[in-house]
């Protein structure tokens, strides 16, 4: 019945020009859209379910999970302690990230400009990437002591590979016709790199940064955990608290780490929105 009607309407000649409205990708607007219950209610419900499960678990297995109230109390009573340690870990994470970013970016440029260097560097980078960093960390502690150095190196290493791979791919993603246009005006390699290749690599770099920003916290904590004599940092706080069987304190530190990771992820997303507005808009217009 409906199908027959459809056929009839289709065969009717169209008297007017059909204007198809552009298809827009439903975007999460940074405005007040998140105030709508549809935006926050699912998450709140999910958290409530998890909290209920946790409370039930803490009640029936007190040696496995501390009650949520205890974690909250620890956080409140020793707020300064946690803040200081969080600050130490965040500093390590960001400085290590910076180190890894600079090293990876420079090497990405070198490997994409010189195929010989790529053949030398890339295999080493891959080997480094598949080596478990948790295994390297103790060795670095032995070599560099309990200071900041091993933490920065571990964090830097963990951030290094995704940035190197993505950036070097982005630098080489310039379409051939673009390169040809600039070749016929004899743009130098440096000009091509600066005006064309590096901007082209930005979306690729940010894809890596989104992975690497939260990962930097992992790197810092792993290094702290491996350095048994460290004096500060959330990783140190965790190993201290667990050695004293203070489960609530362990989970308090873990909660802060999760928060740190989330904040870093938000930060990089905001940065990406600013830098890659052209890229966003391209996606928004549906190609």
């Amino acid at each position, binding site marked *: 019945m409906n199908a027959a009607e459809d056929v009839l309407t289709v065969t009717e000649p169209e008297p007017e020009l059909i204007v198809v409205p552009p298809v827009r990708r439903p975007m999460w607007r940074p405005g007040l859209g998140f105030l709508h219950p549809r935006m926050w209610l699912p998450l709140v419900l999910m958290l409530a379910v998890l909290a209920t499960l946790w409370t039930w678990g803490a009640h029936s297995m007190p040696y496995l999970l501390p009650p949520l109230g205890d974690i909250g109390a620890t956080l409140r009573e020793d707020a300064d302690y946690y803040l200081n340690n969080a600050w130490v870990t965040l500093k390590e994470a960001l400085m290590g990230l910076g180190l890894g970013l600079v090293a990876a970016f420079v090497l990405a440029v070198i490997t994409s400009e010189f195929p010989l260097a790529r053949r030398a560097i890339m295999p080493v980078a891959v080997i480094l990437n598949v080596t478990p960093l948790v295994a390297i960390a103790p060795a670095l502690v032995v070599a560099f002591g309990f200071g900041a150095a091993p933490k920065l190196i571990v964090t830097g290493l963990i951030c290094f590979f995704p940035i190197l791979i993505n950036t070097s791919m982005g630098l080489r993603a310039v379409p051939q016709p*673009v390169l*040809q*246009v600039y070749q016929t*005006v004899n743009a130098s390699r440096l000009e091509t790199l600066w005006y064309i290749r590096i901007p082209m690599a930005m979306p690729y770099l940010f894809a890596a940064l989104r992975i690497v920003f939260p990962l930097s916290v992992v790197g810092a904590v792993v290094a702290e955990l491996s350095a048994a004599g460290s004096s500060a940092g959330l990783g140190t706080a965790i190993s201290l608290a667990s050695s004293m069987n203070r489960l609530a304190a362990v989970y308090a530190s873990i909660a802060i780490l999760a928060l740190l990771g989330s904040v870093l992820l938000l930060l990089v997303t905001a940065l990406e929105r600013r830098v890659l507005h*052209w*890229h966003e808009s*391209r996606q928004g*217009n549906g190609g």
Partner: protein
Amino acid sequence: MPSGSVSISVRGARRVYPVKGGTDLIALDDVDLSVPAGSFVSVIGPSGCGKSTLLRLVAGLEEADRGDVRVCGVRPAEAAAAKMLGLVPQAPALLPWLTVLKNVTLPLRVNRAASRRRASAPGPSMEELLRKAGLQDAMHKLPSQLSGGMQQRTAIVRAFGLRPDVLLMDEPFSALDEFTRESLQEQLLDLWDELKATVLFVTHSVSEAVRLSDKIVVMAPRPGRITDIIDVRLPRPRRAELLKTPEFHHYEDLVRDRLRGAFQANAA
């Protein structure tokens, strides 16, 4: 440039692409071509006839295996170094993070030494060129916000804005619909009329070649070679009305016949 001089000269050019485990592909075999300064020359032929290869040789993007290619008397690489060339590829090849205005001015900002040497030529500014191309409202937009036709017009303005001695266009309109294509042809002729560059225009559209060109070079494949050169003696300016005249159809038929001839000679 004195009239009567030669802008592009190709002599005995041969270009072979090695094929792994097969007979090598002869993209160009002993090609001779001479394009007078200030003229509009189209190269037409079926796919694989080497027309794009020929253009790339003149652009200095590839080297001939044998023979000699000159642009205004110098080798293509030297012409590129002196910014004497402008290239409009098949795809607009715009940079998606730059506005239209920044896209068309970037080629002026690279290789500045050559830009300074060429600065003497007075003429319309980039903004004026964009206005002439109907892009005045798009100047500060990103390429992704433009239609395909507007993107290609931007690419043409980018090339013309260099005030090149030789403009090389590789099927620039082939991805556009018929109406857009015709209006772009008209705008291209207007710009060309004003800026007087030598144009080498690769196309596979017969009517496009007839409408735009002073000379049409017909090529055939396997091996890629020139089979005919047709002079188009139609008055300029060539407005849209010209497309309906018998003279225009005469040239279209002529080019089609020669193209078919090139094909059959090849098959036999």
